[in-house]
């Protein structure tokens, strides 16, 4: 009851108390939407926006996991390779035909993907915590391992889902829609909601932020620092697995180049979303917003008629920096 009272009082405090740092990414997103509408009227069409948000699903979902890892003061460079590795193993399992019924096969394969993802994350976590290796180096190592194993499994080529039954059964997971909303968008929202709940409303979430802001203080406060850190990598692995569950039905195949550079996009999304790279602060919805910003920047570039195809990379980089500057100036004014 007292909690409730406290809550209402918080709401009653004027809008000046709204954390501008948390709002800033959304302002940047709104500015981009306006820019996009000016660049090409088709941009603001529902179809285009749904397309763009749908395909940002991979980065958005992976970045939810990355928010946990980064706010606990860690870093995971292996996520892109992990997508390739988990998705490849999942497809190979589906191709193995050990279960005849396509529906059962699909469910088992999906569970398997989740398990593999969690295991890959656990490996990253244990190497960094138990092995006391800098996360940058540890996950750089596993990045090479997961990528190399994928290349080996595919012999450098592509791993393609062979059974048309499973593919047609699975296809709606990416291309389907519920009440007009594409499935991947629903998955983004659910993943983010769960992530935000865990990070902000549970003891574990508070531990994550505490470990990220000051490891020593956290340790003296009796927080099992190693275990919390390891768990953030497992969460990252789970998020990668969820992204794979959406990735596999899209093209039904993986190759040695699947997920290349996705780790950098995920980290960028997290930072654009307002999470500090040094740890201690985590903003799940900001991260999602950051992932949208990245995808929309690319989309605007392609839809606009005035940017040479050779200059796209430069303009993208500039837009991201401008978006960050807008955020910073907002925060300073507060």
């Amino acid at each position, binding site marked *: 009851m007292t909690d409730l009272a406290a809550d209402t009082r918080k709401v009653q405090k004027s809008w000046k108390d709204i954390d501008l740092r948390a709002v800033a990414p959304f302002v940047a997103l709104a500015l981009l939407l306006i820019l996009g509408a000016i660049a*090409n009227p*088709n*941009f603001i*069409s529902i*179809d*285009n926006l749904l*397309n763009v948000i749908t*395909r940002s699903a991979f980065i958005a979902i992976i970045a939810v996991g990355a928010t946990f890892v980064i706010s606990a003061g860690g870093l995971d460079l292996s996520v892109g390779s992990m997508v390739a590795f988990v998705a490849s193993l999942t497809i190979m399992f589906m191709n193995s035909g050990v279960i005849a019924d396509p529906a059962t096969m699909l469910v088992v394969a999906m569970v398997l993907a989740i398990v593999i993802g969690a295991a890959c994350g656990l490996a990253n976590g244990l190497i960094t915590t138990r092995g006391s290796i800098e996360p940058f180096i540890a996950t750089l190592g596993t990045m090479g391992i997961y990528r190399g194993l994928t*290349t080996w499994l*595919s*012999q*450098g*080529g*592509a791993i*393609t889902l062979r059974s048309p039954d499973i593919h047609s059964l699975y296809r709606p997971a990416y*291309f389907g829609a519920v009440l007009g909303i594409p499935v991947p968008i629903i998955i983004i929202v659910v993943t983010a909601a769960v992530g935000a709940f865990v990070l902000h409303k549970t003891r574990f979430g508070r531990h994550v932020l505490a470990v990220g802001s000051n490891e020593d203080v956290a340790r003296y406060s009796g927080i099992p620092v190693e275990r919390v850190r390891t768990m953030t990598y497992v969460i990252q692995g789970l998020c990668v697995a969820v992204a794979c569950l959406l990735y596999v039905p*899209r*093209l039904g*195949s993986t*190759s*040695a*180049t*699947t997920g*290349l550079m996705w780790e950098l996009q995920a980290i960028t999304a997290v930072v654009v979303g307002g999470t500090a790279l040094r740890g201690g602060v985590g903003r799940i919805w900001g991260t999602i917003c950051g992932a949208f910003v990245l995808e929309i920047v*690319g*989309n605007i570039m*392609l*839809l606009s008629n005035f940017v040479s*195809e*050779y200059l*796209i990379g430069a303009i993208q980089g500039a837009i991201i920096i401008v978006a960050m500057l807008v955020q910073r100036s907002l925060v300073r004014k507060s």
Partner: protein
Amino acid sequence: MRKRILGLAVAMTALMGVAHAQDKKVTVGVSIPAADHGWTAGVVFHAERMAKLLMSQHPGLKVIVKTSPDPATQANAVQDLVTQGINALVILPSDPDPLVNAIKEVKNKNIFVALVDRAPSNNDNSVRDLYVAGNNPALGATAGEYIKKNTPNAQVAVIRGLPIPIDQQRQDGFDKAISGSNVKVLAKQFGNWNRDDAFKVMQDYLTKFPKIDVVWCQDDDMAVGVLQAIDQAKRTDIQYVIAGAGSKEMVKKVMDGDKLVPVDVLYPPAMVATAMELTAANFYNQAPVRGSYILDATLVTKANAKDFYFPDSPF
């Protein structure tokens, strides 16, 4: 009895004589990049396939296939091959210019050198005896010619690879082929020879242009993403997609008469096999092979598709 033994001995001598003639000892070293994407995976597959085939045809022939992930490793691999006493080197350099000195050194030891696909800036007989390559400008030109002939007023969306010379040569070939015609290029964007990126670019093209007649996407890997995007948008205005390389997936579609993929343009990883075959011919058949052997960017159609279909290849 005696006669029979004598007969047998004669027969055996005769057989051994034949065997001897065939048993000319030749060792061929093959140095290729490691399989890091679809096309190089195809190169490895075809090099190994041809090695087996040649060794079974010529009992005295030994073919050693070595793959290397980068130019420095490949330079070492070439040295190792030379130490093993090779008579010929077939090399597809991962990057030709850093490797040109290593190749020259081999050539100076009077070893037959066959260079495949990627040529250094000074590609003459001081570097190699035989040069086998695909034709990048023709890959673009063949696609352009096909579009000009079959859909003279087509609006074409173009997806390019990466901004590197090969890509530019292909694009120039294409532009030249359609220049002066009514074929109109709507837009050009880079898809990085990657399925996922091509999917995104195609989605955006579909948003941007209400009517697209033809998509030229240069590469079979990118075509996978393009086709998926078209399928998702349920657009029926696109008449066909032209890709290139000759992957089993796309050649199969051509073979099966897929309406959206009526043709494919060849830039085959199997060219390494051509170089190996010609190198073997140099030693066993006394056929002159020195010079340049440029493969056409053949148009794969339903009629000839089966010649280019390798179901066991990873590419």
